[in-house]
């Protein structure tokens, strides 16, 4: 029997689910290998026996929390896709303001009818089996994940930084332009798309590990005259919650609550 996969969205722009639709020609091949159920962006049928559930978006409301718990129950394997679901993503920017203030900004007079919580990655609420980070998620990595699932190969995120992909492409390093790029600290897999198009990496795929963060604490103040806090602020944009699962660095970038 074909594995049944499903795609869900919590609080997000749903860009990650759309990235799957963007696979276009490969999507047809994909459909040959799996059965897609419950895909809100693509179809309406609902069924609740799911092998692999992909979820984008952060847990940012009480409903999100309820939904993710339910999804966890119904999905044998739960995969967080995109920066929001993996690291909190840009949703966490709201933590810069008091809750009532941002709720009034978004919902106006009806704010009190729309309760929200702090924005968290899925792993803050339920057990997550795999994470496919990035803002948006990298569609080729999604495809690779599905291939691994179909062929029984072990899936691993790249353990190298963005710089490796950047150098293989032959890009000019942004540091040569006097810009501070987060590539050396950030997990590869996006094919260094930002430096390739002339801007710096903002770390949307998350930190590589504790060693790289420790190096950054030395490098930025001593070699560039930039306090590490300012670097951490930048990394918080996409990744307020960082824990790469093997080097416990959570706490480094978590917002104070």
């Amino acid at each position, binding site marked *: 029997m074909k594995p049944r996969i499903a795609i869900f969205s919590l609080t997000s722009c749903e860009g990650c689910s759309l990235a799957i639709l963007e696979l276009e020609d*490969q999507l047809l*091949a*994909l459909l*040959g*290998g799996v059965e897609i159920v419950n895909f809100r962006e693509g179809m309406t049928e609902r069924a609740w026996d799911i092998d692999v559930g992909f979820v984008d978006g952060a847990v940012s409301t009480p409903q999100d929390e309820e939904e993710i718990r339910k999804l966890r129950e119904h999905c044998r394997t739960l995969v967080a896709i995109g920066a929001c679901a993996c690291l909190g993503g840009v949703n966490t920017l709201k933590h810069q303001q008091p809750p009532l203030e941002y709720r009034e900004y978004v919902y106006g007079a009806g704010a009190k009818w729309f309760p929200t919580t702090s924005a968290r990655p899925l792993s803050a609420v339920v057990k997550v089996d795999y994470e496919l980070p990035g803002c948006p998620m990298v569609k080729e990595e999604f*495809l690779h994940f*599905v*291939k691994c699932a*179909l*062929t029984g190969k072990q899936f691993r995120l790249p*353990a*190298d*930084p963005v*710089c*490796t992909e950047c*150098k*293989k*492409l*032959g890009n*000019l*390093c942004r*540091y*040569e332009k006097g810009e501070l*790029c987060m*590539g*050396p*600290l950030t997990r590869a897999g996006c094919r260094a798309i930002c430096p390739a198009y002339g801007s710096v990496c903002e770390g949307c795929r998350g930190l*590589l*590990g504790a*060693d*790289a963060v*420790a*190096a*950054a604490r*030395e*490098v930025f103040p*001593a*070699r560039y005259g930039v306090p590490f806090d300012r670097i951490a602020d930048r990394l918080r944009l996409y990744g307020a919650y960082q824990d790469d699962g093997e080097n416990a660095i959570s706490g480094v970038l978590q917002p104070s609550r």
Partner: protein
Amino acid sequence: MTGRILSHAELIELIDLLGASRRLIGPVRRGDHYFYEPVAGAARLALDAPQCVYSPKSFLFPPEETLLTFEKESGRFVAQPVLHDAPIALIAVRPCDIHGIRLLDHVFAAPPGDAHYEARRRQTFILGMDCAEPCRAEAFCADMSANTAHLGFDLMVARLAEKLEARATYAIEAGSETGENVLAEFGRGRAPGAVDEAARAERAARKRQAFPKRLRCDVDELPMALQRGFASKTWAQTAQRCYSCGSCNLVCPTCYCFNIRDDISLDGNCGSRVREWDGCQLRDFALVAGGHNFRSDPAQRLRHRVMRKGRWIQDRTGLPGCVGCGRCDGACTAKISIREMFNALAEEAGHDGD
């Protein structure tokens, strides 16, 4: 004196002659920097480019290449090798990079030989461009005896008159039979006269003065200094800043490590085997089955690289493992300098010897 003297226009013609039967690859200007790129004709080239951001290594040993494809035929996988042997001409390759290619030649020729590298290399023509002065502050090519190349090219060009490029003259010499034949076929330029001899001698004298000594030890003393410094504190101290990003590896003209992976189709019926550059500074480089990592500490990885560049490769191949191009220094966003590490260890070794 052997060889010929060419005008700028003649050199351009010669390169276009090479380009008639080969894909031309040479320095192209992009903003303030130069990159080796394929060009349609010699006029597009920046022949006086100093060092390019990347060495021309990627045209012989690409960052990512398909080694073979495989397909399921009546239940069994059948593999088909993929070899690239379209002729190319690498133009204006600097001495440091020629030394780098010599090392790659040596490494990939080791039995049983790397068919993919060798197929490309056999079809590669190298036109070298000698350096009259250091290209950048980080370069210590002269200290590593790599700012001049006597071997490893088909033709070598040295610019004589340093005036306007359009009026420059070039001394050109062959370094291979193919190079000789190309010069003979071209037939242009003139035999060097007394004036050219004098210009060449003057250039050589100027070149000897132009490269400051940037290493605090002799290249022959470096391996011993490194060996003595195996337990030095320098490694851990410097590695505090190291991101383990591998940029130093990936820009190095003498790094040749790679990884191999299989890409498969969604239905699992066909796929390809791909190799891509790897680097010893990356955390998982020495990770083996069972999860053991032989060099899990950044300081061990940093030492490994510096040892290889300054000692181990030389020991094993007789060729320099580092050609002093300074690219790794420039590429390191943590500002870790291999030259400074060499110097720190040379100094420590010197004190030990006192």
